[in-house]
């Protein structure tokens, strides 16, 4: 599972990899659920990008006349207390939720990869201190850590990204470190050393590319967890601040009391969160199967 070579993995599984479409067709046939996951994610990303073209109402404009309006032909998913169109808010909310979760996933993974690679490669006191520090961070549940970070940094879009990214670091760093440790014993690293390649070059050119496969699997799985963390933070009022329409935020505005009076305010934002995370999980599973042959049937 160490080298990232989709084509090799695919052809080993029997795909025609000579054309790009052959590989895609094979992936769809071999991992139908993974393909569905990719489509779900693509739909949400497209909706976020083209939000102004597929919505009629502004997500921030309030209108007292339609306060708590039921879903209807004019307002497909109804309106919230302030008369804002729920459909528009969900579509624009995709921008916020996806940007925050992808941002924190990328940030957390980059820091994690750097730390893990350095730690596994340098060993010694650097490794010792880093390991203790990561262990410390991991002895608090992810959401608790994120809540404290969010409170400490104060509410803003950037701070929410940071608050979710930092607690992710140990999870990435540990996987990458373990992978680096096993890679540095491999013959090709020894060979590189024997021909006099510098340590830095070995780390960047030989070890790093070989950690990509586990990283991709990890990052896809984490995207789901960052979306959930963002929604929990915003639900608790510690995440994305007003007026940004975040899915978690929409649920906190509408929580308990609207369960009785306006269920559409509860159902639809939650469905949006669940669908995207479901998509990332489906895709993540398929990628793991593809890149980790131990579980192939």
């Amino acid at each position, binding site marked *: 599972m160490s080298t990232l070579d989709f084509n090799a993995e695919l052809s080993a599984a029997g795909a025609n990899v000579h054309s790009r479409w052959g590989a895609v067709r094979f992936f769809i046939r071999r991992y139908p659920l993974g393909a569905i996951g990719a489509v779900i994610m693509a739909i949400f990303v497209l909706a976020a990008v083209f939000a102004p073209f597929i919505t009629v109402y502004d997500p921030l404009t309030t209108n007292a006349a339609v306060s708590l309006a039921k879903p209807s032909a004019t307002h497909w998913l109804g309106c919230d207390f302030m008369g804002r169109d729920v459909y528009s808010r969900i579509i624009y909310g995709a921008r916020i939720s996806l940007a925050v979760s992808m941002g924190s996933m990328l940030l957390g993974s980059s820091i994690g990869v750097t730390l893990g690679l350095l730690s596994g490669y340098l060993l010694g006191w650097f490794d010792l201190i880093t390991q203790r520090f990561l262990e410390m961070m991991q*002895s608090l549940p992810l959401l608790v850590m994120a809540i404290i970070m969010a409170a400490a940094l104060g509410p803003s879009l950037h701070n929410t990204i940071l608050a979710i990214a930092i607690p992710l670091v140990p999870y990435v760093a540990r996987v990458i470190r373990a992978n680096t440790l096993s890679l540095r014993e491999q013959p090709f690293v020894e060979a590189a050393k024997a021909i006099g390649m510098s340590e830095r070059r070995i780390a960047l050119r030989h070890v790093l590319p070989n950690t990509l496969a586990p990283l991709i699997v990890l990052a896809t799985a984490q995207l789901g967890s960052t979306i959930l963390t963002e929604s929990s933070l915003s639900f*608790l009022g510690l995440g994305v601040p007003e007026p940004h329409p975040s899915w978690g935020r929409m649920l906190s505005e509408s929580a308990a009391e609207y369960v009785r009076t306006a269920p559409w305010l509860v159902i639809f934002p939650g469905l949006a969160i669940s669908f995207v995370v479901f998509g990332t999980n489906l895709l993540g599973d398929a990628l793991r199967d593809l890149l980790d042959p131990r579980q192939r049937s």
Partner: protein
Amino acid sequence: MGAYLVRRFGLMLLTLFGISVLIFVLLRLTPGNIADILFDAGGYVDPADKKKIEHDLGLDKSIPVQYADWIGGLLHGDLGYSYQTEKPALDEILPRIPITARLAGIALTFSVLIGVPLGVISAVKQNTMLDYFLRVVSLSGLSMPAFWLGLLILMGFVAYFGTIPIYSDQPVGFWNTLLMYSVPAAAVGFRSSALMMRLTRSSMLEVLRQDYIRTARSKGAPEVAINYYHALKNALLPVITVIGIEAAFLLGGLIVTETVFNIPGVARFLVEAIRWRDYPMVQNLVMFIAIVVVTINFAIDMLYAAVDPRIKYGN
């Protein structure tokens, strides 16, 4: 083994010390303290009053001195006073622990009882319709936010019974008590049971491909015995680890679930304390959570050695 225990215990203390410093510094970075929040609510700020409150609470001392005060007290069993209620922090925290512990215990039991057997079935019937169905259900369990599932359950109660289950200090009768705890526990435990199922499945799949399983099969052992005795026994090791990690993660899920169901447990209390910049409460609660997690991890490590004779510590 003895030397290993001592080393391990030392590392635990080091971790807890690190957490205490980390949480202390993070809280002091937080914009605004309780005096700011109180005066924000009042509207008018008399600087002398604000100074007095900060002095009374010891917030005007330097950060290292504040830290030393806190840790010194902690070691003497004095957790300080809550800024909000002015009651001793210990009196605020202690009554809330059993509530959260019950929720977490029920949720964990629920997730193991449902997740492990379904995981075995899914692995044994790999790539059948049943397997696909169970995998999709478990994946959706991992995809739903716990608070949303809680809200949906509340909605179901409104639709069928016209009311929502309300938490009370003195529930009447055993069944009422069980219902009161089980509903939120199910909301938070669904995710864990999905996780257990997936993990049991993949762990089983790996074990089922091993030679000794083929040996068992060729000597004519019944299929049920192979799956539930020979294979499951070895497949459970990674599951045990995750039960430990999950116990800690449940605390995270319980923060939102206790909020949704309005349950006065430890987890929801943490969020309230953070909102009010109630430093003593936040610090002590976080330390409590960290101690629980670290202890669970330690216990899991020991359990590992007990379950798998190949693992020996300290040799």
